[in-house]
């Protein structure tokens, strides 16, 4: 990748692109299981459009980002560094972590907040091969009755939900699609 590519792929119109991107991110976090389109950034491979857009929308010099294994390339580091100035940190110090589920694990590496400050927990951006409104059955805040979402590891995520009000929050990204799973959501395996 040449220098040109590190500098490109950001928002064309940062305030407006970020506003649209945040609306999508907020909507999926408020309605777990809902899948929305999230575009604006064009990050270098292997980051997806949705994951790259989330990073540009939410990260800056105040947030440590952990790039998990395959996501940790010199291209992604330089792209993220140029556009956000976010420091690259290890998993245990990360505010945001991005990568494939198997690369991000184990979940116990991440900050889950403290009982007095549950907000001081990591947000994981999980790159997925597919996002579908079926699989695990979700219920809880933001969901009228129940809804479905394809999840990578139901047992691990159930364990995370058990920690409530502590725990990590998740975005699942696939291409330009995004869904979210906050720690408040109750998860059941289908069937």
């Amino acid at each position, binding site marked *: 990748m040449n220098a040109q590519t590190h500098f490109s792929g950001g928002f064309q119109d*940062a*305030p*407006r692109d*970020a*506003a*649209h991107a*945040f*609306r999508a*991110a*907020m*909507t999926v*976090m*408020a*309605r777990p299981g809902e899948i929305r389109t999230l575009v604006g950034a064009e990050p270098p491979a292997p980051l997806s459009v949705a994951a790259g857009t989330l990073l540009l*929308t*939410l*990260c*800056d010099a*105040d*947030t440590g980002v952990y790039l998990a294994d395959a996501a940790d390339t010199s291209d992604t580091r330089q792209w993220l560094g140029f556009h956000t100035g976010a420091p690259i940190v290890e998993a245990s110090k990360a*505010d945001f972590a991005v990568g494939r589920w198997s690369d991000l694990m184990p979940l116990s590496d991440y900050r889950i907040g*403290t*009982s*007095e*400050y*549950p*907000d001081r*927990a990591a*947000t994981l951006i999980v790159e997925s091969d597919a996002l579908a409104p079926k699989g695990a059955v979700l219920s*809880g*805040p*933001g*969901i*009228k009755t129940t809804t479905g979402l394809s999840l990578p590891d139901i047992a691990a995520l159930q364990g995370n939900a058990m920690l*409530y*009000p502590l725990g990590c*929050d998740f975005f699942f990204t696939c291409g330009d699609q995004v869904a979210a799973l*906050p*720690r*408040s959501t109750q998860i059941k395996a289908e069937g």
Partner: protein
Amino acid sequence: MNEYNFAYLDEQTKRMIRRAILKGLAVPGYQVPFASREMPMPYGWGTGGVQVSAATLTPDDTFKVIDQGADDTTNAVSIRKFFENTAGVATTEETKKATVIQTRHRIPEAKLTEDQILVYQVPIPEPLRFLEPRETETRKMHSLEEYGLMHVKLYEDISQHGAISTSYSYPVKVSDRYVMDPSPIPKFDNPKLEMDAIQLFGAGREQRIYAVPPHTKVVSLDFEDYPFEASKADHPCDLCGAEDSYLDEVIMDDAGSRMFVCSDTDYCRSRREAGHQGPMTREDAA
């Protein structure tokens, strides 16, 4: 239009607020600290709500602002103008046309939909603050889910007045975990806190943001033998005749005559436009 960044705030501030909003949605009812900025209006005029709106608005939104239900009071007009000037968003007074509604102390009478966002201006976000002034202690009480003091307060209401006399800022428990101050909305509005829209709360001076996602369980605290009651003036609206809306009492003259009128001006107007009449409008017609 080009003098300000879109929606006034700089991008780093908006990112910080947006991160707080996401954590607030993930832990409903928990007050997320945020680095509140100085806004070009005094504290108490909705600086928290304005910052949350600024971080939430997109250019495609239609924005509505109400102050005690009214679209035409100073606070509402100035905030509406502020975002017309700095974000260039469309504005409206009609609840059903709005996508983002910033409110001070009311929930609109019309049922809000999935596509709407309600932003509250909050003066004191901490429901336990008047019972325990120390932040270190209230934070501990929230972490331990120790809310006995709040029930003692409601009990003292009953022992002194024979009923729970708290009539606004009526404490609620969100999603069976956090006790939350729904901002000084009348307790009449409390049942509406379980809604289809996303609710965001911003307290500028106190530097807290919290949120209630759609369809989240919100229970007003009460006792089995003194259940919560959503009360209002026992009167229809004098202008539109509505029996189901929250009413303001307006003193008419020095002799003490008075009228009751919907606090939600858009609701009242749309009812009158639909042909509904109240005691006073009928009298005029006769």
